[in-house]
């Protein structure tokens, strides 16, 4: 989600973010409610068609999302072979694989702001108890933005420590990283003020 958006004009790209997230939730519910191999296989094919054919996403973009969970899926299948049977293991693994791929299709075809707008919309009922949806949306967007920034700063500190002979100092990384993050947060607070974040409207402006 940090950098997965692949610009495009396909019907999947043009579908409203809220609808895509609702479909993702429905798919997850449906796959767990109907744990049959033909249902799961059909859903997997449907997701692959939506991603590769309709949205025209490169296969490597989807594979990049599957790769981190590949070992977990294999291990899960192995456990099922031991405690249940191959069919149950196949259904379980394909179900998770389908959901990972479906989530990848949604994030690759939806801008972060559109996803954040859905979060804000979902939070609107909480306005009556003082929640400001735009503030929460900004927080979500900034979290996504600053994960790679903080990771980069951690890598720089690790390099600086390695250059001075330190190795394997996991805890030694924490203090300088915390100091840098606090400095970053201080400047970020000023930047938010300078860019008018204090004026964040209760709701996003709509197209005229």
């Amino acid at each position, binding site marked *: 989600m*940090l950098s997965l958006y692949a610009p495009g004009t396909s019907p999947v790209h043009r579908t409203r973010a809220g609808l895509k997230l609702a479909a993702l939730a429905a798919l997850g519910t449906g796959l767990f409610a109907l744990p049959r191999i033909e249902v799961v296989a059909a859903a997997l094919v449907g997701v692959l068609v939506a991603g590769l054919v309709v949205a025209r996403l490169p296969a490597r973009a989807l594979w990049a999302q599957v790769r981190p969970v590949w070992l977990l899926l294999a291990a899960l299948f192995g456990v099922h072979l031991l405690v249940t049977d191959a069919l149950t293991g196949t259904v379980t693994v394909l179900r998770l694989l389908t959901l990972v791929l479906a989530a990848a299709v949604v994030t690759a075809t939806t801008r972060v702001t559109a996803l954040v707008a859905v979060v804000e919309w979902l939070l609107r009922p909480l306005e009556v108890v003082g929640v400001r949806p735009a503030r929460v949306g900004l927080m979500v967007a900034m979290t996504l933005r600053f994960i790679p920034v903080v990771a980069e700063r951690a890598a720089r500190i690790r390099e600086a420590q390695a250059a001075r002979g330190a190795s394997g100092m996991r805890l030694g990384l924490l203090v300088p990283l915390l100091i840098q993050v606090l400095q970053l947060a201080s400047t970020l607070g000023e930047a938010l003020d300078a860019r008018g974040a204090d004026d964040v409207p209760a709701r996003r402006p709509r197209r005229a």
Partner: protein
Amino acid sequence: MHWGRRGAAAADAPPLPRTAVELRDVTHAYGERTVLSDVTLTLTESRIGVIGANGSGKSTFARLLNGLVVPTAGTVLVDGLDTRTQVREVRRQVGFVFQDPDAQIVHPTVAEDVAFGPTNQGRPADEIARRVDEVLDRYGLDGHRDHPAHLLSGGQKQLLAIAGVLVMEPQRVVFDEPTTLLDLVNTRRVAEVIEGLRQDVVVVTHHLDLLARFDRVLVFEDGRLAADGSPAEAVPWYVARNA
């Protein structure tokens, strides 16, 4: 790297109304430590440079100009607006570009981040889209509109930070060491961008050659305004002082 239509939109556009920033007996302290003492001056020139050693008070001076810092004593007025009591109006008139662009880019992708400021101003979505397109094109970022900001080069990040401020159409822009983290090519590019702006600018910098064509240069020393004059006067004075 693609730079887009360099400053074309800015050059074609009509000049903005000039701003006047007035500091009256301004002192600022962080706790017990006074970082700026008794500064009184009026800024009306279009191009103003601010130089001084580290810790001389120049960054605090810059932050006073759009109300990021309010003086512990004295008054800062931007076109008559008091930064202490009318800070929102002041910030609509005075934009601020920080030294580290990573600290001021708040959205994950380029176009989304540029849209942040005008969205906060409550502009209609169509106008935001038009403004975003315009500044992305002007600063050569149109090809990066959906790119993650953290994957941009240092120079592109600084251009994005500048675009994110200019899209709000301030009348004066304050730059706090905008080229310190940049290489030579990107330093030149940012200098060109600053030179091409139709806004009034205040640039805090250690790159003295950026100031050659400026109207006025202020030199800070130990929290006091030590020199104030044209680049031809103030820069050699500062260099001789630090020789």
